[in-house]
């Protein structure tokens, strides 16, 4: 081993520090400084739990051809179209690492966030190493403030796709390299297989990039050739999945308006979390504006990192266009810390160069650290190591895995967290949920009923009818899906919460449970501090007498 050839690489050391600090900020404190957990930690939303259910389902079914039956109202041939490649990879990592899928998923999502930062760093470094180093502190905003919300709230397919988006920017800056179209094709394919809605913005960017280079007379024949070749490879690699997408959820999207300027998105929330605005960066947004102005000095030969920054500024504000474009465009603001970092970096670099003519890389690293300390110190707040589902509830829901038939139907009565319906998929059984309004009505009328308004807890139910055609079970079984009156006696299991923020509902649950337990065919099979599960040994037989309670 030729250790004597090893040189101290100060840039590499700084990047390792950045890597470590970002991972600590993003996931370390959230995870309670542990990789493996015996319960869900950091799952703050239904979306997050949904992703976990999909990844875990791959291990249960052995592949991701179909969604698992428990997310598909019991059907076992519904088209799986959501983030197939990375979810399959996570299942593999789970096997090899020995970690639970819930731990792998979370670790990978945050790790990919960190990798996105480093890819953006190298994209900027292609322009100027000092600016790239000085830009790094701004990228930490990704795990601070509103941007962190995209991670904490479970927009994970989007955040992973952004890693590929940033990689596309990087590869567009390398179009002059031999066979660079292979990398470009791989990254665009990554976007398609992870969160396809980002594709439209990347196609737009490629058009913008080429248009800009043509106008500024910087376009080359190779540039066009590489992009065309990348497009052909991408189409070949993605054709089957695009067909699946088109046959499933894509069929519904076609009906939506792409743009609707009469209905812009102007709310302060997107998907339930605060929207990032340029003012979200506080006083630093002034530096970003200055950085944008400085970058215009080299307008004709503008580097890809600046072009990407300007383009993503436009995409972020496309919420004013309304429609699907506006909705998804606004979501892209969560990654502004990466896209705008170059403006921050060039502004600071421009200022220091006014004073110090002989600037060195090591100064940039020192300055970067100096900027990092107050930026993180003032803006970072540690997220809590908890989840929307507590351990005891998870234990209750997991009870079904090894104690009930796979085709069992489970009826859930009121529970505080069940409005986040993905939670019910944790049973790995077909779940139905009582409509809260109807349940409250019964409570107010002091009535014990046999039928309640309820809903099936199922995702998209598209299935293939031939290679090129598909059907939708929700259309084919119109009378069985959606919110409708359901006879609870037809179900195999009943789940009641013992505790609630609304104690009357918990009390009503317990009355219902005790009335059901009076039936000789029904018995309590699981109970802990927060929930009780009853088994109905004779579904479809009489199980409860309708009555009024005192």
């Amino acid at each position: 081993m030729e250790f004597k050839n090893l040189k101290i690489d100060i840039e590499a050391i700084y990047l390792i520090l950045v890597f470590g600090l970002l991972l600590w900020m993003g996931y370390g404190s959230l995870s309670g400084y542990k990789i493996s957990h015996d319960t869900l930690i950091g799952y703050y939303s239904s979306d997050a739990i949904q992703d976990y259910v999909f990844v875990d389902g791959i291990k249960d079914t052995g592949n991701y051809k179909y969604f698992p039956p428990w997310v598909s109202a019991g059907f076992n041939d519904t088209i799986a179209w959501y983030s197939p490649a990375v979810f399959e990879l996570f299942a593999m990592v789970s096997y090899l690492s020995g970690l639970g899928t819930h731990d792998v998923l979370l670790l990978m999502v945050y790790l990919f966030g960190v990798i996105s930062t480093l890819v953006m760093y190298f994209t900027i470094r292609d322009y100027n190493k000092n600016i790239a180093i000085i830009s790094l502190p701004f990228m930490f905003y990704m795990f601070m403030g509103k941007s962190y919300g995209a991670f904490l709230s479970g927009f994970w397919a989007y955040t992973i796709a952004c890693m590929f988006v940033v990689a596309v920017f990087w590869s567009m800056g390398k179009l002059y390299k031999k066979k660079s179209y292979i990398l470009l094709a791989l990254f665009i394919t990554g976007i398609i297989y992870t969160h396809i809605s980002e594709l439209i913005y990347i196609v737009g960017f490629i058009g913008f990039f080429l248009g800009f280079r043509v106008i500024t007379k910087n376009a080359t024949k190779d540039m066009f050739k590489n992009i065309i070749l990348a497009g052909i490879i991408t189409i070949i690699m993605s054709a089957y999945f695009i067909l699946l997408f088109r046959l499933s959820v894509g069929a519904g999207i076609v009906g939506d308006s792409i743009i609707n300027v009469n209905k812009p998105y102007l709310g302060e929330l997107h998907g339930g979390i605060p929207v990032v605005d340029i003012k979200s960066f506080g006083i630093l947004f002034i530096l970003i504006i200055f950085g944008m102005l400085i970058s215009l000095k080299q307008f004709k030969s503008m580097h890809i990192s600046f072009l990407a920054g300007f383009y993503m500024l436009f995409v972020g504000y496309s919420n004013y266009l309304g429609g699907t474009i506006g909705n998804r465009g606004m979501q892209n603001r969560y990654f502004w810390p990466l896209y705008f970092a170059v403006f921050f970096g060039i502004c600071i670099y421009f200022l220091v160069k006014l004073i110090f003519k002989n600037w060195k890389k090591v100064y940039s690293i020192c300055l970067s650290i100096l900027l990092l300390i107050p930026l993180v110190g003032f803006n970072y707040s540690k997220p809590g190591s908890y989840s929307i589902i507590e351990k005891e509830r998870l234990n209750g829901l997991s009870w079904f895995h090894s104690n009930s038939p796979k085709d069992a139907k489970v009826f859930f009565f009121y529970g505080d967290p069940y409005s986040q319906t993905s939670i019910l998929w944790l049973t790995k059984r077909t779940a139905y949920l009582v409509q809260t309004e109807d349940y409250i009505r019964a409570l107010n009328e002091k009535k014990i009923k046999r039928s309640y308004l309820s809903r099936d807890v199922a995702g998209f139910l598209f299935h293939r009818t031939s290679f090129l055609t598909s059907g939708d079970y929700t259309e084919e079984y119109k009378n069985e899906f959606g919110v409708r009156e359901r006879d609870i006696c037809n179900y195999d299991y009943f789940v009641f919460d013992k505790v609630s923020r609304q104690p009357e509902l918990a009390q009503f649950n317990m009355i219902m449970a005790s009335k059901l337990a009076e039936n000789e065919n029904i018995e309590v099979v699981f109970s802990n501090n927060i929930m009780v599960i009853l088994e109905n040994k004779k579904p479809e037989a009489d199980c409860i007498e309708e009555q009024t309670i005192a």
Partner: protein
Amino acid sequence: MKNKQLLEKIREEGLYLGIMFVTCLIVFKVIFYREDMVSIIRTVFSLFYMILLPGYFIMIYWIDDIDFKERIVLSVVVGTIIVGLISYYVGIIGLNVKYHVIPIPLIVIVISFLLNAKLNK
């Protein structure tokens, strides 16, 4: 560049990869200090074997054009989509995902190496 030189360069970078592996172990242990060392080693090894190494061996095509640090970071992105994509389709064909774990990354590594060696002639 001839194959001998390519092998020499890969050997040299293999040393860097080894240093990176140990560095990752240290970084992970510092961040996840409440985790036992065996889990840390298994996790870091899994990430290297399933994502980074397949990506690295694909990217040795650009060994002279892109520096090691940059290639390593991009290897993660490349490895993610390549291994994930192959596993997805192999799963659809009918082989259970639990049997993909060892062979798929290994096949990507071997084929990438052989292809790069052939293209390098």
